[in-house]
């Protein structure tokens, strides 16, 4: 029974709790036990609030028993990246510096999940200050990939990716400033959706770069992501999910986006494109604009905004940052203010140019999520620093520019590499095209089973 509950996806679990087939107490007990046992093995857990969660589960079951109408995530246990504030709770942001910080507000997205009936079991691991595409965390330890613990889970929402892939919780919120939802999504075999910048509130979420930060969901299915996004964005993304994709057009930009792609990834992407064609999608080829410029613009905005909020600690506690993290923030201390304002002022026109070049007349663009196979933890932490920097740069090759553009994007699992780690493609749309992204991902998952495969570390067999 416990394995059966853990194996349910978010919408199945929500439906089972709503109908009374499973109680919220049962689901919450299973999730807490698995987070404590498997989650700690994967170093995916920061803190569990067992007592509070079980009380909330009991209250949820009592409400269901009363016959009251139930909200759409009633009694469903979730846990989130340790960047989301709840008033009175610790919120360390994966850092030594904020280890004792207690929030005096609750994030709007957490309040929206509360209102939708979801239970909040605790907080999950992340990269230090959300500053790594691998999940690197020198002070709290690196989270592990459920498909193989020697490999990175992707970051910065590393614990969220690991916990959802290992079936510890059915969904989790993360954040994405340069790929931090799409990286763990791609590397753990999940859909990680970065919404259009500004669509989902980021108040009460520890910031990294306000102009780039996005809050979004990680889950196994497009339907689950649609449900979570509907709650946190306060719009409906489920109603159009089943309307099919016949007649849709998807663009495949070449050039920059094909430069680093590993043969295993090429094969998986080609198969995904075939599957989309078989669903009635028309594929067109396009060419990206100057991505080196876009990456430079992203780097300036991110590092200047990060350096602005971290400057006090860079002065007072520089030794409490991992060097890999500090080295990403400090460039922001050196750019003139004119470069920063120029980077923001150019954003609308450059985004429109990217859309015209990469999407053109199509509905969406399809890119690799990660161009290379998932690296080992050793490859991203040990050896020649230049080699480590090169691997880390390759991981964000197709993701970081999207944050400057502010466009919606999602990782969609589409295979496994030779080492057995997940591969994903990335769908990118025009502003507020989350509906289209989810519709395509849902149709694709209807003809493939990548999202149904279970890592051994989930211990469900």
């Amino acid at each position: 029974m416990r394995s059966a509950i853990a194996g349910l996806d978010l919408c199945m679990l929500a439906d089972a709790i709503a109908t009374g087939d499973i109680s919220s107490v049962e689901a919450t007990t299973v999730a807490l036990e698995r987070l404590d046992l498997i989650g700690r093995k994967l170093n995916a857990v920061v803190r569990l609030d067992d007592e509070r969660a079980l009380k909330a589960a009991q209250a949820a079951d009592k409400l269901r028993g009363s016959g009251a109408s139930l909200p759409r995530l009633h009694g469903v246990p979730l846990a989130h990246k340790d960047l989301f504030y709840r008033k009175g709770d610790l919120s360390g942001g994966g850092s030594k510096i904020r280890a004792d910080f207690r929030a005096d507000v609750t994030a709007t997205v957490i309040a929206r999940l509360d209102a939708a009936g979801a239970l909040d079991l605790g907080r999950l691991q992340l990269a230090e200050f959300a500053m790594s595409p691998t999940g690197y965390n020198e002070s709290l330890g690196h989270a592990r990939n459920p498909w193989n613990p020697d490999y990175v889970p992707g970051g910065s929402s590393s614990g969220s990716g690991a916990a959802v892939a290992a079936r510890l919780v059915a969904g989790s919120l993360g954040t994405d400033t340069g790929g931090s939802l799409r990286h763990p999504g791609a590397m753990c075999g999940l859909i990680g959706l970065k919404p259009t910048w500004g669509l989902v509130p980021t108040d009460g979420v520890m910031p990294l770069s306000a102009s780039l930060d996005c809050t979004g969901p990680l889950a196994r299915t497009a339907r689950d992501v649609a449900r979570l996004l509907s709650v946190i964005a306060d719009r409906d993304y489920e109603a159009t999910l089943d309307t099919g994709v016949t007649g849709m057009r998807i663009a495949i930009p070449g050039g920059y986006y094909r430069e680093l792609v590993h043969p295993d990834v090429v094969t998986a992407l080609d198969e995904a494109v075939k599957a989309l064609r078989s669903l009635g999608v028309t594929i067109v080829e396009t060419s990206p604009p100057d991505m080196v410029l876009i990456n430079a613009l992203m780097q300036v905005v991110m590092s200047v905004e990060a350096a602005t909020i971290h400057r006090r600690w860079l002065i007072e506690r520089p030794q409490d940052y991992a060097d890999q993290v500090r080295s990403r923030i400090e460039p922001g201390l050196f750019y003139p203010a004119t470069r920063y304002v120029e980077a923001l002022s150019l954003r609308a026109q450059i985004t429109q140019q990217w859309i015209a070049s990469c999407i053109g007349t199509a509905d969406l663009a399809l890119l690799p999520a990660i161009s290379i196979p998932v690296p080992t933890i050793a490859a991203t932490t040990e050896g020649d620093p230049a080699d480590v920097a090169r691997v880390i740069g390759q991981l964000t090759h197709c993701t970081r520019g999207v944050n400057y553009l502010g466009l919606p994007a999602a990782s969609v699992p589409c295979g496994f590499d030779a080492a057995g780690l997940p591969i994903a493609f990335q769908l990118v749309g025009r502003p507020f095209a989350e509906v289209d992204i989810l519709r395509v991902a849902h149709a694709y998952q209807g003809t493939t089973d990548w999202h149904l495969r279970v890592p051994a570390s989930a211990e469900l067999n």
Partner: protein
Amino acid sequence: MREDLLRQLAAELNKAPAAADRAPRVAALVAENNTRIATEAVTNMSFDSSPYAYQAWLAAVDKN
């Protein structure tokens, strides 16, 4: 870009002496990004541009 200029920026304008000591390792990155964006802005940024234009554009294209 001269490294001593970057050191001064960190130490004097940002009061971050430890960051100033590490300025040499970011000098090439900062110089390259600075040049690239400065050139683009001089060439393609209109006089009546605004850092808030992006938010206005997003609001205009949001059909909901």
